[in-house]
């Protein structure tokens, strides 16, 4: 198009600088808003060109307050046209609406909004269906990995405490363990170790392993109570809660790192604590249901499970637990719920016998009269743990 028909476009000529993209030099030019495109006239050498509006690209999108415009055209690769001043940019906005900030923003945002909606929707779907990716991965872990992971957790948790190995106590523990493990019906053997540790707690760790403290044995009134606690821990093990907890913690930390662009550090921990808080509670219910099933199968009364927690709670209210120990205590990780109590009470009665003979119970209580140093293996990283 050599010349624009009179009266067709905007007849104002604007000052511009034209660069051909071959050298860094720029030539003075004038530009007019023609009917179908920009009409560019370079001063010297005298060259005319028309860039169709549809083929224009702009460095930064055009805005009402834009003070200049930097344009390219797909018709002339490499070349660019810089037009200073607000009037040209404003006038161009009406002729090339695809260069405006609004159009640009929408074009840019569309795929991301789609992706965000998809992520939120699939998150909601996973949540609603109750499917847990961490649980699915945990189920796929080879047994030998779970064992080693468990060993790792135990060594880092019990660092500095001695293992209780009194032979008669071990015998009693083994008979209780056998009776419960047989009743799980999974055919998986459980490993239970007692540590000479004054705090009252028991943990299920990966690989069907359970750590129990001397403090818990001391606080328990009967073998039935210990059996209840152990059955509950086996319930965690059967449901793969410890494995799932670790995988979830790692996954969540990775997700937060990603979201923060790899520079969060401490922030990951806030998420971890809150997420673990939420998930353990659902896990407790599952573990309780498993425990009740195991106890029934083993013909041990379920009352011990309920009573133990009830008593622990009333003791705490009286202030028996030393302050420093409270934060690692069984109740802090595991608030006693009316739900558990109701669950125990709803159980249809069945014939039961004591979990251990009085002599065996006495032997179990004395398991820490002989102790050995646990394998030295401090790991600096604190392992996520599945508390009772």
């Amino acid at each position, binding site marked *: 198009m050599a010349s624009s028909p009179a009266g067709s476009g905007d007849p104002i000529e604007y000052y511009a600088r034209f660069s051909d993209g*071959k050298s860094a030099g720029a030539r003075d030019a004038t530009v007019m808003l023609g009917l179908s495109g920009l009409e560019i006239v370079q001063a010297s050498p005298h060259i005319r060109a028309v860039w169709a509006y549809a083929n224009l690209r702009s460095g930064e999108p055009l805005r009402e307050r834009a003070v200049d415009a930097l344009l390219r055209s797909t018709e002339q690769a490499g070349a660019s046209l810089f037009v200073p001043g607000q009037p040209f940019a404003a006038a161009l906005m009406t002729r090339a609406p695809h260069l405006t900030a609004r159009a640009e923003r929408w074009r840019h945002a569309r795929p991301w909004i789609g992706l965000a909606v998809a992520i939120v929707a699939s998150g909601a779907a996973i949540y609603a269906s109750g499917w847990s990716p961490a649980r699915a991965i945990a189920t796929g872990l080879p047994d030998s990995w779970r064992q080693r992971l468990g060993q790792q957790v135990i060594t880092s948790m019990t660092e500095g405490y001695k293992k209780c190995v009194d032979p008669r106590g071990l015998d009693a523990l083994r008979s209780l363990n056998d009776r419960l493990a047989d009743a799980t019906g999974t055919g998986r053997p459980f490993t239970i170790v007692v540590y000479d540790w004054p705090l009252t707690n028991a943990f299920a760790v990966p690989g069907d392993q359970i750590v129990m403290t001397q403090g818990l044995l001391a606080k328990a009134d009967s073998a039935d109570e210990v059996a209840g606690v152990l059955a509950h821990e086996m319930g965690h093990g059967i449901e793969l809660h410890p494995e799932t907890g670790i995988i979830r913690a790692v996954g969540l930390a990775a997700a937060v790192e990603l979201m923060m662009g790899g520079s969060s550090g401490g922030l990951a921990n806030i998420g971890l604590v809150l997420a673990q808080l939420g998930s353990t509670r659902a896990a407790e219910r599952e573990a309780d249901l498993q425990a009740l099933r195991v106890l029934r199968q083993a013909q041990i009364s379920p009352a011990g499970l309920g009573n133990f927690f009830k008593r622990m709670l009333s003791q705490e209210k009286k202030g028996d637990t030393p302050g420093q120990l409270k934060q690692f205590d069984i109740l802090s990780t595991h608030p006693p719920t009316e739900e558990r109590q109701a669950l125990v009470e709803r159980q249809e009665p069945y014939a039961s016998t004591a979990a251990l003979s009085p002599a065996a119970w006495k032997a179990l209580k004395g398991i820490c009269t002989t102790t050995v140093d646990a394998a030295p293996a401090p790991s600096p990283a604190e392992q996520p743990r599945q508390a009772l």
Partner: protein
Amino acid sequence: MLRPCLTRAQNANAPGTARRTSGYVRPKHDERAERLLGPTMSIDHAERTISGIERSDSTIKITFDPGTDRLIGLGFTNGLLQVLTLGIYSAWAKTEVRRKLWSFTRLNGEPLEYTGTGRELFIGFLIVFALVLMPTFAGGAAISILLPGRADAVTAYQFAVYTLFLFLVGNAFYRAQRYRLSRTQWRGIRGALVGSAGQYGWTYFWTLAGPAIFITAAALLAAWSIGPDVGGTILLVGFIAALWILPWRANKLQRMMTDATRFGDRRVTYTGTSGPLYARYLYAWAGSAVVILAAIAVSVQMIAASGAFQVWMQTKQLPPLEDGAKLAAVWLSVLVLCAMITASYRASQIRHFARNTHFEGASFRSSVAGPRLAWLILSNWLLRIGAIATAIAAGSLLIYITGAIPKPGTTDAARIGTATLDVLLILVPIVVMSAVATAFAQFRSTRYLVSNLSLDGVVDIDAIMQNQDAAPKRGEGLAQVFDIDGF
């Protein structure tokens, strides 16, 4: 070569004037153009200046011209999309910020253009994630699972990984710079970084690792042949003395990078030597040493006085929170003080680097000043801290308003729901606010550095031709992973 002169007639409709087909009229009132171009303009004047800049195109004036934009809105959108896409968007967010900062930076009134894309950065990140991060993580996991309780194996592995990373950091710097330069253009002419990232990475590595190995070896030898006291002293004194390598090292690395920089087909050259850097380094070095030694003394005193160490040794009980907070406060002040003390050195280093960087016939000049730089660093920190504090407050308020606190007695499902909601209500404001603070902080830093930079001397701009080398295809992966790509 000078730009061809305009004819008289063409000059008449040059800046500040516009022509209707029926005659000459001024365009509708444009205050900004008027300020830049002048309300009336003689032909001679118009010949020489455009946008207040030498129009003869033989000099380059660097300006930073953001208008009213402070990247606050962009930071907000970026943060929000980052949350909603689980972080995938961050590569695109970074690109959007760069595009803005580049377009604010002007040479002779015409903006720089950033032509990189989020997709390039993302693919670069994925590759490094698969080739470096995943294997490293998997190796660590394998060692702790296969050799349970072998702390020495874990330590050895960590040492190996840190060494590898230190080796890769310089490499990453170089690659990031190469990517950014190749995606930077002015008037369609690209920048480039030639040379080898491996060589730069190696220099970056040995100038740190070399002295460290030498001093450690000397200390071990002394400890073995004379006594552990002598060895320990050699180690401590040696490492403090070894800090004197830093200005020399910085200068050497700057030379490698600058000499390999191109704009179009033209070289950028560096003529700096490290000598002039040492006078100011003395103050920074001595000042930091005094502050750190004092802080060590105070910390030892505090720990001894509280008895926390004995308690920990015997019972593995962590010290009470307030003791930890006091200690953290001491070291936070050390961090701030050292940043302030070293700021004047850093400013002088920036000026030194600029002064010794030449392009064609011109040399750069920076007027960055120590106190201003110190304030910039400090205020950017405060900005980030303030943003996160605000976010936590806002999140807590949201939790309070929505009542999303897990209550005992409710069903488990409801509890999980509220706990998840809690995480979101805190995390989302934190991510969004840090994105806002980061974008604004980058804006402030860039504004300060660019508006204090100038290029003195004559440059034959017309003679600069496009650079024909192929640009790298992918983004800066490594640097993103190490979080050292800056912008």
